[in-house]
Each structure stands twice: as C-alpha cells, then as structure tokens.
C-alpha cells in the first residue's frame, strides 16, 4: 500500500484518529451482532439506537471540530457505509452459517433447523463427502496449474511483444468476462459432445488411441469425463490468471533485460534471473484468483462431468437447495472455507508477498 502508514501527528490528532476508528469498529460490531441475532428484543432496539448515536455523533464531531479534525475523521466517514454493509452481509452470514452447521433438523421434512451444538454434521461431511472434497481440490489444483502453463506465456507475449497492440490484446483477454459463464460452459458441452467438432477432429486424425492412453478420452467420449471438467475450469478462470501476471510483467523495465544481455547473459538466464522473480507476485495473485473460485465451483462439473466427477460445490448445492439439509450443507461450506483460508495463509507465507490486493 502506498503511503497509508500512520503519520506521527500531535497527540490531539492521534486521539481524533482513535475516536474515528473506535466509532467505526463499535458500529461494525453492533450491526454484525444485530445481524447475527446475538442481540434480540428490546436490547436490539437499544443497540440500534446506540448505532445511530455513534454514527451521528461522528458526523456531529466532524461538523463541530475544526478543519483539521474534519480531515482526520473524513476517511472513517467515507469507509463507514461500505464497511457496515460488509459487516452485516459478509461477517454476520459467516456466523449464521457456523450456527446452522451446528444445528439439527427435527425431522426429515422439517425446514427449520434447531441449534444444539451438533458436531455430527462435520463428521457426516467428511465421511459422506470426503471424495467430493478431494476431487474439488484436485480438479481446482490441476486447472490452476494449466492456467499458469497457458496464461504465463500469453501474458508474457502481450507485455513484451504486444507493442502498440498491447491494450487491444489485453481487451481480447477480458472479452470472455462479458459473455455468460453458463452459456460459455454450455458451449463447451456442445463442442466436446460425441458428435461435436473436437471428437470428430481427433477421430479424423486417428489420434483417439493416443488420447485414450493419456486419459483424456474415455471410451471414445470427451464429454462427461474428468478431463472435460478440468478443461472447463481452466477455460473459465484463465483470464483471472492472465491479468495479474500481465500487470506484474508490465511493471518490469525492459532496460533491465537489455542490461543483462549487454553483460552477456543468455535470453534464458535473463528470463530466469530477472523476469521470473519479478513476476512472482502476479503468479501468486493469479493462482489465488483461479484456485479459490475453481475449488467451490459446481457449474463445470454439472454441465461437463458425470455423477462420478462431482466436486464439493455440487454436494453443497445439492444438500442445501435440493435435499434441504441445511445443517450438513452449512458444515461442508464452512469446512471448505476453513481449508481455503488455511491454504491461502500457508501459501502466502511460502511465497511471502504483500501484493495480495
């Protein structure tokens, strides 16, 4: 982050900062607690009044204080609406998800679950859906790797050889963003179908045996195979890989590479020692932006896969919206989130970069 470290101001200014931050945090905590229904009944009314008082109090303080006070309180005021929205509709739902995951459905046909510290949902999630968890992360992992393999050279060529076409090429990469995700996936299901052009081409070139041996084609079919699901994931998240890699490559000064060549470095060594290390933040951001949505995806597995290629996303969706087993679905959802948080944190530690955002 650029220049957002706290300036060492006079004590009065620091006190104003603390008041602003405190008001923001108190308001956020109050609205989240009301959303979680931890505060109910007349206490909730009191909390709402308190919330309004905090917000209005800050406005009053800004108006009553001098220009300097106003200046120091301004960022907190600007942040408040958006942050409170996130506190109520991002933070509070994670809590209700946790509570739902520890609840029990009174009967098979009941809709409303009752909270009773039922950890059995987590045991069920692992015992009944372990395979789906495994497949979800495996497919997402392979798709992420493929995205690097396809996306890095593409980003490299655009950044270093695009010349005046750079922006146009980059625009082309973004275009798939603007066509419906679902229809794109349906397009793939039609392209990969038994009578579709791709299978036809492979058969025409008599390469079916080769693709069977590679495990891509199964019994002469391309659709409804793990390869099709992974291919769909790779396709749908590829732009998320290309863009951050491009951004990090674009920042590299070409003079650095020229300097290396002047010093008799080979092109390969110049790439390994200069370009590659400097593009690590882009690859890091790209893998996160690809892996996280891919791990929770269920559209590709639904449209391109078969019942044996379902991912954890399919199970959560099915349990939540079809079987109406909210507690079990919530437990799976919560586990998915925890695994991803842990994975992201250890990955961040491994690659150590501050350019996450």
């Amino acid at each position, binding site marked *: 982050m650029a220049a957002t470290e706290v300036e060492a101001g006079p004590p009065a200014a620091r006190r104003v900062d603390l008041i602003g931050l405190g008001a923001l945090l108190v308001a956020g905590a109050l609205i989240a607690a009301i959303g979680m229904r931890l505060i109910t009944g007349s206490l909730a009314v009191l909390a709402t009044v308190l919330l309004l008082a905090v917000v209005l109090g800050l406005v009053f303080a800004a108006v009553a204080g001098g220009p300097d006070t106003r200046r120091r309180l301004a960022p907190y005021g600007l942040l408040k609406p958006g942050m409170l929205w996130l506190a109520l509709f991002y933070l509070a739902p994670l809590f209700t998800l946790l509570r739902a995951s520890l609840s029990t459905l009174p009967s098979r046909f009941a809709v409303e679950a009752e909270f009773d510290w039922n950890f059995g949902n987590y045991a069920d999630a692992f015992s009944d859906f372990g395979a789906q968890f495994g497949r979800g992360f495996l497919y997402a992992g392979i798709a992420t790797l493929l995205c690097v393999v396809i996306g890095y050279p593409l980003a490299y060529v655009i950044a270093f050889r695009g010349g005046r076409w750079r922006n146009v090429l980059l625009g082309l990469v973004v275009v798939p963003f603007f*066509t419906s995700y679902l229809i794109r996936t349906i397009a793939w299901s039609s392209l990969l179908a038994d009578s579709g052009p791709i299978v036809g081409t492979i058969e025409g070139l008599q390469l079916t045996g080769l693709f069977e041996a590679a495990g891509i084609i199964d019994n002469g079919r391309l659709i409804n195979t793990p390869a099709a699901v992974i291919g769909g994931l790779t396709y749908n998240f590829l732009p998320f890989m290309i863009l951050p890699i491009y951004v990090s490559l674009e920042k590299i000064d070409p003079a650095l590479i020229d300097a290396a060549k002047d010093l008799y470095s080979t092109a390969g060594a110049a790439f390994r020692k200069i370009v590659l290390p400097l593009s690590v933040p882009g690859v890091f951001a790209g893998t996160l932006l690809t892996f996280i949505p891919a791990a929770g995806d269920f559209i590709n597995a639904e449209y391109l896969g078969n019942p044996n290629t379902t991912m954890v996303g399919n199970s959560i969706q099915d349990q939540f919206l079809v079987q109406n087993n909210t507690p079990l679905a919530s437990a799976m959802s919560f586990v998915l989130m925890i695994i991803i948080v842990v994975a992201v944190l250890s990955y961040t530690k491994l690659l150590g970069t501050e350019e996450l955002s």
Partner: protein
Amino acid sequence: MSAPTSSRGAAARWGLNLYAAIGLLYLFVPIAWIVWFSFNEPKGRYNIVWQRFTLENWSDPFSNESLTDAFAQSLKIAAISTAIATLLGSMIAVALSRYSFKGSSGLNLFLVLPLTTPEIVLGSSLATLFLDWDVTRGFTTVVIAHIMFQVSFVALTVRARVRGFDWTLEQAAQDLGASPMRTFWKVTFPLILPGILAAALLSFALSIDDFIITLFTAGSLSTFPLYINGSFRVQFPPQANVLATMILLASVSLLLIGVIRSSRRGVVGSS
C-alpha cells in the same frame, strides 16, 4: 528488446508467439460458438446442433417471454446494485488512497476477504442469514448479495486506478481559494471518474452474470443465468445466444469507447 541473433532464437521467438496465439484462440472458441449459434435454426428445443443459418432469432430476440422476463430482472438487479455498490466502493477507495489513518491496513485486509471467499460459501452463508431472519428470498435479497461482493470489487479496482494520483492538486486548488466542495467536484471527481466508470462497468457485468450467489439468494425469482440453468433440462432456445451476444456487444463497445477516449487523452497529454 534486441533483435534475435540466431535462427534458433528466431524459431523460439516465433514458437512462443504461436503458443500465445493458440492460447488467445482457445479463449475465443466458445465465444465464437455462442455468436454463431445465435444464427442457428434449431430442430427441436435444443440449440446445440447446427442446422441452418437464419436471422429469425435476431429479428425477434424477445419472443421467449420467460427468458425476456428473466433478462429484464437481471438488468434491473445489476442497475440497482451497481449504482449503490459503486457509490459505497468508491468512497472506500478514496478513503484508502487519499488519507493515511489508523487501522487502514486491517480494514484493507477485511475488504479483500469477500473476494477470497468462494462464491458458494458467500451464497450459502447469506442463505442461512436470510433463513435465520425469516426473510423471504427474492429480488431484494439478490440485490443485497450483489452489492456485498461488488463493494469490495469496486473499492479495489478504483483504488488501483487512483494509486498514482497526485493529491497535491487538491491542495493547489484550495490554495487558490476553492472551497473543499468545489475542489472535489472540479478537481478530484473528474480525475477519478474514469476509474469509477471502469469499475462500475465491470461490476455490472459481474452482477448480470452471477449465478452461484444468486441461486442461493433468489428464492423463486428468475434471473438470466438462473433461467438458463433451470430450463436447460427441457429447452435451450437460440434467443439465449442472442441475448448473450447482445451483452457481449454492449460491453465490448463500451470498453472500446473507453480505450479510444483514454488513448486520445494520452496523445493530448503527451503533446
């Protein structure tokens, strides 16, 4: 970059360019399919096998009533949520890039979290919240959910765009006697507007195309992606391709306008 010195170098160079070209082509195969099949005259209810060329789907893109209704809902949701999220997100972006204040790094991290949470977790957690509140899921809950993920997106996109912004210009305006209000509307706002518009366009596209979070918060409401998914087992009308192509054309032309305008400004600025 220096010219290739050996034929091996040249071959490697062209090999890489070819590889990248194939990668770009890969991105466009399904897009081409979508556009091409919007001109198909399908046999039966599935527009997934090529029959013959027709302009009929384009002459009457809104003939499928439930599809059109769903599409209109998507546009309405995207318009409302984008307007609110752009306002809230831009305010956050200005706060984070314009001011240095206590707690900014922590708040910054909090802002990134929704974008690093899988959509299915966001969707299912919001569903548990609305179940908990005993709220009927529908239009409003979808708008609320979309604003939630758009706010973070807008804030980060706008912040990235205003990162190199020279805030001393504001100081200069005020030194010349402009009031803070006047400074904002005459100096700051015009300079950050392109970033805000780009973020709004992208988040509009995110909203219109969102499927997973919408599925969990929509209840019985139908949106464009929800309609496609729900009806796919019984039909897939060519009008879906026409509407998808329309979204594509509209956003690409907006992007083009943006690119042309910014490059023109670049020319003026450098001369």
